[in-house]
């Protein structure tokens, strides 16, 4: 054979083998935990979410259903392009069927688009922006744990009702922060309050001094922190340094997790009012889960995000088992919406047509150091907001999937 002939033969053989490989049906359900492993939100999601996903798979017991399930993880570093690249590669090359977690709304929005394009499933336990079930809703996406509307209505309303009627916002300048500021502003105004001003800061800011100065100058009673993770912690710490609270103003942490409270210490954080949809110390089932979870995360406590990962993965696997297939993302999501949810952590609940998972929300107040009896005993329950009221009404979302 001539050299050219040999080359042509080799190429043809290669092409055949590649084509053959793709024709195979893949019988493994692959779950990709895409999260922030090393920066701003790594304590809230990160390795903790991976641990939760693995616990969920364990509890589901794939062998009993005749299924094989694999969990992989990746770090999106809070950057939409890195997250999008990884998701694309996972879907195209690594045969991942579902992506879960994704704290950071800007990345989540990108993942939602790609998931729709590739007809896979996205279960966002981490992202906050209510746009994911609003104008950007998708038949392949379910927003699981919380969203900015719920936070605004939980924390925002409670604070305004107790006298915090003038606000100044410190907002993280991206999808999530802007959504949170927007949703909270609506609530404040609807309840007779006033917004005196706002300032946008870049994501992952280490020095809040000039922003805090502006907040102090506004003389607003409440400084609303429309940010999360490390940014919230820094703002509160530096606020103490600059005498914000001794000057009579209060911080309202619009999205605060138990990990932030642990980072701040009860001494600094006491009295802070916040809304979460899950707390490790509320039921025996929660405590049992936390104990198992802590095997891989000693000394830390799970926030509602890993709990949401656990819950979403279990429900997904149940839907796949019922359908006996994982290839059609839309079909799986439709099944998940059809089946009522029931798991050890969130109890009974349901998923709405716009992709919104519904469950109760809780208004917590951070305990004072004297009130805390053991590590992690950080919250006392102030109020329970039933699922029907906690989330934005279906008709108000502007989701194209719903008639209006």
């Amino acid at each position, binding site marked *: 054979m001539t050299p050219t002939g040999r080359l042509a033969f080799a190429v043809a053989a290669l092409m055949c083998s590649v084509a053959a490989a793709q024709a195979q049906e893949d019988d493994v359900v692959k779950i990709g935990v895409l999260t922030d492993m*090393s*920066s701003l939100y790594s*304590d809230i999601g990160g390795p903790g979410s991976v641990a939760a996903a693995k616990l969920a798979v364990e509890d589901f017991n794939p062998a009993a259903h005749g299924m094989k399930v694999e969990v992989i993880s990746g770090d999106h570093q809070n950057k939409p392009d890195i997250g999008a690249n990884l998701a694309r590669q996972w879907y195209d090359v690594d045969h991942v069927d579902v992506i879960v977690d994704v704290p950071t709304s800007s990345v989540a929005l990108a993942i939602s688009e790609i998931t729709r394009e590739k007809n896979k499933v996205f279960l966002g336990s981490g992202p906050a922006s209510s746009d994911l079930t609003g104008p950007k809703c998708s038949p392949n996406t379910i927003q699981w744990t919380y969203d900015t509307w719920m936070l605004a209505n939980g924390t925002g309303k409670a604070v305004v009702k107790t006298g915090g009627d003038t606000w100044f916002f410190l907002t993280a300048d991206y999808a999530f922060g802007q959504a949170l500021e927007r949703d909270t502003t609506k609530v404040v105004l609807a309840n007779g309050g006033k917004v005196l001003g706002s300032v946008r800061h870049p994501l992952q800011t280490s020095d809040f001094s000039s922003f805090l100065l502006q907040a*102090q*100058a506004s003389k607003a009673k409440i400084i609303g922190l429309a940010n999360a*993770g490390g940014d919230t912690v*820094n703002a509160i710490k530096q606020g103490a340094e600059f005498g914000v609270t001794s*000057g009579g103003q209060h911080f309202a942490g619009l999205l605060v997790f138990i990990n932030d409270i642990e980072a701040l210490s009860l001494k600094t954080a006491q009295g802070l009012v916040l809304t979460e949809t899950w707390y490790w110390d509320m039921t025996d089932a929660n405590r049992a889960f936390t104990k198992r979870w802590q095997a891989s995360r000693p000394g830390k406590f799970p926030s509602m995000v890993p709990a949401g990962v656990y819950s979403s993965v279990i429900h997904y696997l149940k839907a796949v088992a019922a359908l006996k297939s994982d290839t059609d993302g839309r079909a799986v999501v439709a099944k998940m919406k059809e089946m009522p949810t029931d798991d050890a952590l969130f109890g009974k609940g349901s998923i709405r047509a716009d992709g919104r998972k519904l469950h109760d929300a809780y208004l917590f107040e951070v305990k004072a150091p004297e009130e805390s009896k053991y590590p992690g005993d950080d919250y006392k329950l102030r109020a329970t907001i039933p699922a029907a009221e906690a989330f934005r009404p279906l008709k108000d979302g502007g989701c194209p999937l719903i008639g209006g």
Partner: protein
Amino acid sequence: MFEVFGIPSQALFGQLLLGLINGSFYALLSLGLAVIFGMLDIINFTHGAQYMMGAFAAYLLLHHIGIGYWQALVIAPILIGLTGVLIERLFLKHLRNLDPLYGLLLTFGLGLVIEGLFRNYYGSSGLPYQVPEALQGGRNLGFMFLPNYRAWVIVLSLAVCFATWFAIERTRLGSYLRAATENPVLVRAFGINVPRMVTLTYGFGVGLAALAGVMAAPIYNVSPQMGSDLIIVVFAVVVIGGMGSIMGAILTGFALGIIEGLTKVFYPEASNTVIFVIMAIVLLIRPSGLFGRSA
């Protein structure tokens, strides 16, 4: 309360003071860079990483050995300065006769290596470092509440800057250094160990960066990327001040900190870019910088 161009004076003075505090860091860091460039013709892109290492040294000294802030102020710069000496001996020495852009590329690469190693080990969220007891709290100045620690930053950096300037411009050692830059061969002929002076000078510049890092630790989170974004601004400061001029670097550092603070009051959207705009303008009108020797 009076108003200046519609901005209440309270906000103005507050941001000016914050600008002065930021300026202190700019001044300290650009001083180190100016010393290194002025004396050695090396553009030290590793400066940001060395600043970061100073902050980490303070953190590690506290958490692993129990050595507090005040001792760290002295120990960390010496430690990191020694790493600087190592860098000079191992790498920079070989580039003495090449185009300075090679030095830039090498120090840039070293900076990436250092930042990458720290990021690998510590992740990129910040590590906490407490303000030392003696400097906690603050005083209400009427127009703003000034934390004591931030006031200390201004005082210390002014002192260090002045001391360095004095040492280089007014002492005999300083004059040896300056002579060695002009004409190393001749100075060597006088029996002065020029290579050793070069190495120690680099180490000193690096030590200055590390000192700034220790000072920054309680205010900014100690994180692996704390240096990389700051360093570009500092380069702009050095270029504006004049690449070889010590006094130029110091004055420009403080001045630009204040200008940045003013911009935050009047036109906050431009506050990130104002220093670069000034740099571009200065380079076009006076290429050697405001105080520099001729290009």
